[in-house]
């Protein structure tokens, strides 16, 4: 009980500096956890996000750009391919046997920043966007080809305030240059899928191809083909045939690996953020050192009294070290509150920008070792003042010699 009492009383005596120091550690812990969790979560979630498709076929260019545009509905399209290429895919016996589903999409229009994608009814009727999970309608129904009907993702519908019966004029380009003449009516709102699909306004394929003001060539072109394969070996075969033939097509497969490339490319950002987080943690540990060290002159007398009462040097050393560790632990615990706020903000931004839902509270080892390492770092910061406490000269400090 001696050591806890000494630590508790010391913390109480220096309550303000304890709070300020613990607060700075909480910020450091929150930042460290947020950087780490968001980094690992986003890599895992983005790599696993494929909306149920194994590959994308598109115009010759960057596979990453093709995947980002077709699956995540960000970035610009690398270009169009002709409808004939799509037909080739369906009719070529070599490919036809390998493909379970091939869905054409057309992109290029939007509504106040929300992307409009043209596709076929099959997407919502037959495709599983995740194993065992098909698209479901929160209200309404699927669109019909040949009509000016739209199905809206859950997030977009909520943000736009749309429900079944809402109408809109598509706007040209992803920046929305001008309104098209066509008036589309929302006939279905999807249940949330926690995927990029939630951010998209879906209309029939030919609606986008034949939209007023579009290049007449668009009628015979599509932006990409989303492909579900029967087996992964088929993907390798198609990869060889379509990518290495030097043709005009790009076959992006497998999607997860291509997305992982993105994180490899921006890996330096992760490293910088992690470095910043650790620097903040080091500064927090330094603040423990400074706050306790600065109060050592005031504490010397108490330490000398304790020593005169029989406390060993190692007891007062342990008390100061323990105090630093407790401040670190308090800060690290409060860091979870900071993490909750920061992670919620980051997760909402990621969701708004990509439709992908991060779950920051999903178990990750950093949630245990991060705060523990920080508390340990703070305890290390207590070493210097603890050594000072260890060396306090009792006789000189406790009373004037007579």
């Amino acid at each position, binding site marked *: *009980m*001696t050591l806890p*009492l*000494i630590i508790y*009383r*010391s913390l*109480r*005596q220096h309550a303000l500096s304890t709070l300020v120091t613990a607060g700075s550690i909480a910020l450091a812990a929150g930042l460290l956890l947020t950087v780490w969790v968001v980094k690992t979560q986003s890599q895992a979630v983005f790599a696993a996000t494929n909306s149920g498709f194994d590959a994308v076929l598109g115009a010759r260019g960057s596979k990453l750009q093709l995947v980002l545009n077709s699956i995540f509905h960000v970035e610009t399209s690398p270009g169009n391919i002709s409808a004939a290429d799509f037909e080739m895919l369906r009719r070529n016996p070599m490919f036809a046997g390998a493909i379970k589903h091939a869905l054409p999409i057309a992109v290029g229009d939007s509504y106040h920043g929300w992307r409009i994608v043209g596709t076929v009814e099959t997407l919502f009727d037959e495709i599983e966007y995740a194993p065992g999970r098909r698209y479901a309608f929160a209200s309404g129904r699927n669109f019909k080809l040949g009509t000016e009907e739209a199905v809206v993702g859950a997030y977009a519908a909520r943000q736009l305030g749309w429900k079944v019966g809402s109408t809109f004029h598509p706007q040209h380009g992803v920046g929305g240059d001008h309104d098209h003449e066509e008036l589309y009516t929302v006939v279905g709102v999807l249940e949330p899928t926690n995927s990029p699909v939630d951010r998209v306004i879906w209309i029939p394929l030919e609606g986008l191809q034949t939209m007023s003001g579009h290049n007449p060539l668009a009628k015979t072109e599509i932006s990409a083909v989303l492909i579900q394969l029967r087996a992964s070996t088929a993907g390798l075969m198609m990869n060889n045939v379509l990518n290495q033939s030097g043709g005009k097509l790009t076959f992006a497969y497998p999607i997860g690996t291509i997305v992982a490339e993105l994180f490899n490319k921006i890996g330096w950002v992760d490293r910088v953020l992690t470095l910043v987080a650790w620097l903040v943690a080091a500064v927090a540990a330094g603040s423990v050192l400074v706050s306790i060290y600065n109060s050592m002159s005031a504490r010397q*007398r*108490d330490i000398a*009294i*304790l*020593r*005169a*009462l*029989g*406390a*060993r*040097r*190692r*007891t007062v050393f342990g008390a100061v070290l323990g105090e630093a560790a407790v401040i670190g632990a308090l800060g690290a615990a409060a860091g979870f509150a900071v993490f909750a706020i920061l992670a919620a903000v980051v997760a909402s931004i990621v969701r708004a920008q990509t439709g992908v839902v991060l779950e920051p509270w999903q178990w990750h080892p950093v949630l245990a070792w991060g705060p523990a390492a920080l508390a340990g770092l703070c305890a290390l910061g207590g070493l210097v003042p603890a050594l000072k406490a260890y060396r306090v000269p*009792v*006789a000189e400090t*406790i*009373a*004037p*010699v*007579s």
Partner: protein
Amino acid sequence: MLDVVQLRKTFVAPDGERVEIVNVPAFALGAGAQLGLRGESGSGKTTFLHLIAGILAADSGTVNVDGETMTTLGEAERDRLRAAKIGYIFQSFNLLQGYTVIENVVLGMSFGPRGADRGHARELLERVGLGTRLHHFPRQLSTGQQQRVAVARALANRPRLVLADEPTGNLDRKHAHDSLRLIREVCRENGAALLLVSHDESVLREFEQVQDFAQINAALRGQS
């Protein structure tokens, strides 16, 4: 109970010269005895008490407390012996300001062999008239009350020897008299020997046995 033989302590003065502060060829105090030690300021009596308590290490000589030779022990063992067998009442009380009255006493006990005994601490504080001030902080007490806390703390571990360094120096005459009586009574009740140093003749007059530190400390004779 307490035997001091050829005890010497020197310090290095700011001019680099080594100055002898304590040189006590022989000094003894029996179990349960109470002795007033007369000494002027700067006579080295606090250093003498520090050497007995093991707060300072002697240059040479021996201090034997209740059968254990303090001067041959390492620092940690001296700390243990002090916590177990010696109670110390300081002139300025040296109470821990951030701790309550009972915590001051309990903390003093916790370094001794019996460990913290809140019940005994409470009894002692009631004995010195502070039963209603257990959870007050020192700054909330009068000077006399603070001194009584220091007395209770010094006796909390049932020490065999109590060292008191000008314990009434900060009190007025009336409170000094009451306080001294209390210290002597409580030491007697607890069977502890008392060595009290003071330069105040009115305090020393209360003792049946008084010695002059100048006669014990050969270092003072050398300086004169």
